[in-house]
């Protein structure tokens, strides 16, 4: 009898290194030095790029220097814009998280610590490229200068909510802003983005698509459907996996991150797998720019894993101190994206601590002003859309059975 028939089998269930009460433990992780990773040509094959799935593209060092071939050499104006949008995103999150605590809405989700991803990518994309986001990319809307007050109206489900109070707070939608309606079901938007990109190619358009999902939801079948279709039809799409380490209370090992990287999912599909420091604004920008150029040249999709850390709770409905060390975020070895870009601008002589403080105050005031405007219209269950509006937009035209049900409300 072979040994395999004598050994009792045992089931492996991945566990994170640290739980509440433990010391945060990121030891044993090694990252390439900033500037150390070469920048390949955009027409490199998926196979040639295999190693990128296991590395980490970094530009900024911890002192704020931009290093190596991926440095995007952005103008100081662009850098300041990026920084201001990140600061504004954080200020918006702070206020709306508080608004939920004050009972003004039912739910909120911050993107604390992940601001660089959506903001840098919004700037690297063209304003009319189509985004199929998940629920933590509010930075896209903010960087595309979508009105904050409309975001708040949506969050408050008030009479000015562009979505007529139908969606959970933060599930924004704006065709005008190139921001697809957010679904609560995870990863569904990823193959849809691929379809949109295929249609854009079908139509001979110049716009590309970009989509985001968390590392946790790469386990969904839809992610793999998307990868298959994107690869088969060389869709002009950028598939972004935001690896923020935590899917509610499940660490990334539960999604398969213990054995490999999420970027490596691209290898099997022949899709270029770039892995980037998601807290490094310049690296995120540069990698996105590379993927944009590739898509626009009919060379097909790119998979980007943004290596980051979810600084806040999953949503207002959970307390992360119940499942991870409370100070884990502060120990994150790749720092805070806003601090790092600030340091870079200061080191260039294009920014100062005073200017930064002023920018933070200005962002807080902008958010306060928008908040006053939105709250004037109403907050949750105070001046909502009229009840008969419930029946609109199920279909283009109201069929008889919905007319009958609407009439039933008044009986």
């Amino acid at each position, binding site marked *: 009898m072979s040994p395999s028939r004598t050994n009792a089998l045992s089931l492996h269930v991945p566990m994170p290194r640290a739980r509440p009460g433990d010391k945060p433990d990121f030891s044993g992780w090694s990252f390439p030095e900033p500037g150390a990773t070469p920048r390949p040509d955009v027409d490199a094959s998926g196979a040639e790029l295999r190693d990128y799935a296991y590395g980490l593209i970094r530009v900024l060092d911890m002192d704020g220097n931009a290093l190596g071939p991926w440095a995007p050499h952005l103008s100081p104006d662009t850098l300041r814009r990026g920084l201001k949008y990140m600061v504004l995103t954080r200020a918006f999150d702070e206020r709306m998280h508080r608004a939920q605590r004050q009972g003004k809405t039912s739910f909120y989700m911050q993107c604390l610590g992940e601001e660089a991803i959506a903001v840098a990518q919004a700037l690297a994309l063209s304003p009319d490229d189509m985004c199929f986001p998940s629920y933590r990319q509010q930075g896209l809307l903010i960087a595309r200068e979508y009105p904050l007050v409309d975001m708040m109206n949506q969050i408050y489900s008030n009479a000015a909510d562009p979505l007529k109070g139908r969606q959970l707070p933060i599930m924004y939608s704006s065709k005008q802003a190139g921001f697809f309606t957010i679904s609560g079901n995870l990863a569904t938007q990823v193959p849809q983005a691929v379809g949109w990109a*295929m249609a*854009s190619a079908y139509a001979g358009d110049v716009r590309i698509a970009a989509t985001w999902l968390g590392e946790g939801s790469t386990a969904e079948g839809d992610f793999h*459907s998307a990868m298959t*279709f994107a690869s088969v039809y060389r869709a002009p799409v950028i598939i972004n996996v935001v690896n923020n380490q935590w899917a509610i209370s499940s660490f990334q090992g539960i999604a398969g991150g213990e054995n490999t990287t999420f970027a490596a999912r691209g290898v099997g599909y022949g899709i270029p797998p770039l892995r980037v420091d998601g807290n490094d604004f310049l690296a995120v920008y540069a990698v996105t720019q590379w993927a944009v150029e590739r898509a626009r040249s009919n060379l097909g999709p790119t998979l980007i894993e943004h290596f980051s850390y979810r600084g806040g709770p999953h949503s207002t409905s959970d307390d992360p101190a119940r499942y991870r060390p409370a100070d884990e975020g502060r120990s994150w070895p790749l720092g805070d994206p806003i601090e790092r870009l600030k340091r870079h601008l200061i080191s260039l002589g294009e920014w100062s601590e005073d200017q930064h403080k002023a920018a933070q105050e200005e962002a807080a005031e902008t958010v306060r002003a928008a908040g006053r405007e939105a709250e004037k219209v109403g907050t949750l269950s105070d001046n909502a859309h009229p009840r008969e509006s419930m029946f*609109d937009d199920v279909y283009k035209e109201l069929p008889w059975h919905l007319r009958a049900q609407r009439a039933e409300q008044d009986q």
Partner: protein
Amino acid sequence: MTSMTMIQALNSALDNMMARDPNVMTFGEDVGYFGGVFRVTEHLQEKYGARRCFDAPINEGGITATAIGMAVYGLRPVVEIQFADYMYPGYDQLVSEAARIRYRSAGDFTVPMTVRMPYGGGIYGGQTHSQSPEALFTHVAGLKTVIPSTPYDAKGLLISAIEDDDPVIFLEPKRIYNGPFDGRRDRPVTPWSKHAASEVPEDHYRIPLGQAKVLREGADLTILAYGTMVHVALAAAEESGIDAEVIDLRTLVPVDIEAITKSVAKTGRCVVVHEATRTSGYGAELSALVQEHCFYHLEAPIERVTGYDTPYPHALEWEYFPTPQRLIKAMRRVMEA
């Protein structure tokens, strides 16, 4: 006018729409070069190029989701799910996505796509090639569900489905693709060419969604049917000696409540027939609608003749499939009640 089978009529609808509208395109498993396992997309790749008619990976979730993305972009994709039984891996994309995108975006994004699926039994297809899952779609707010029963209707309804600005589930009764099988296995199936409804204009025409059709007028009893069961109902009406009115619903959502009400108000009796399993089947909805709208006209309980609440049994298919004999028994019960 040309005599067409249902397959040819569906092909003609696609051909017309692809010729008229550059945004109409089609894809699915084996749909491109081969023209689909039932040949509904035959010659379309040859005529319109691989860009507009192509093969898809075996991934119904991906087919449905990419079609949604295309429709959101502004195309009018028509996708084929090779058998309705294969839809389930893509079901979330229909239920949570296609059906709700207009609603959740308050009309900003829309999904004008058509999902074609051959469905139904009577072909010795076993559990995974015989199901009738229409109730899984009619239960979903935001989807329309259409089922033709003749070549003429199939073309006009498919054109309306493609032109519709909402997602439409288009179920094709594959047992009657090539002839109006009426459930009598002991007789040869008449080919469509002998049937008046196989006369199909080559040009574009529409049959509006939401309109039923009275196929046989009668005074005694109303049979509500769709798909293959329409022909079973017609055969049962002829053989039973009961003066039954046969209504082909053609669209299940939105259903033509006026046609149903008018007929049952006249006859006072109603039998519902479908191939699908009974519990929570579409017949339950029809029965409830008749009860709600025609209760004071009813002279007998409503009966349902349906597939049994079992998986589709391969060797016992003909015990399972609703035949004219089973329907006639129910009609007699309703007449005697």
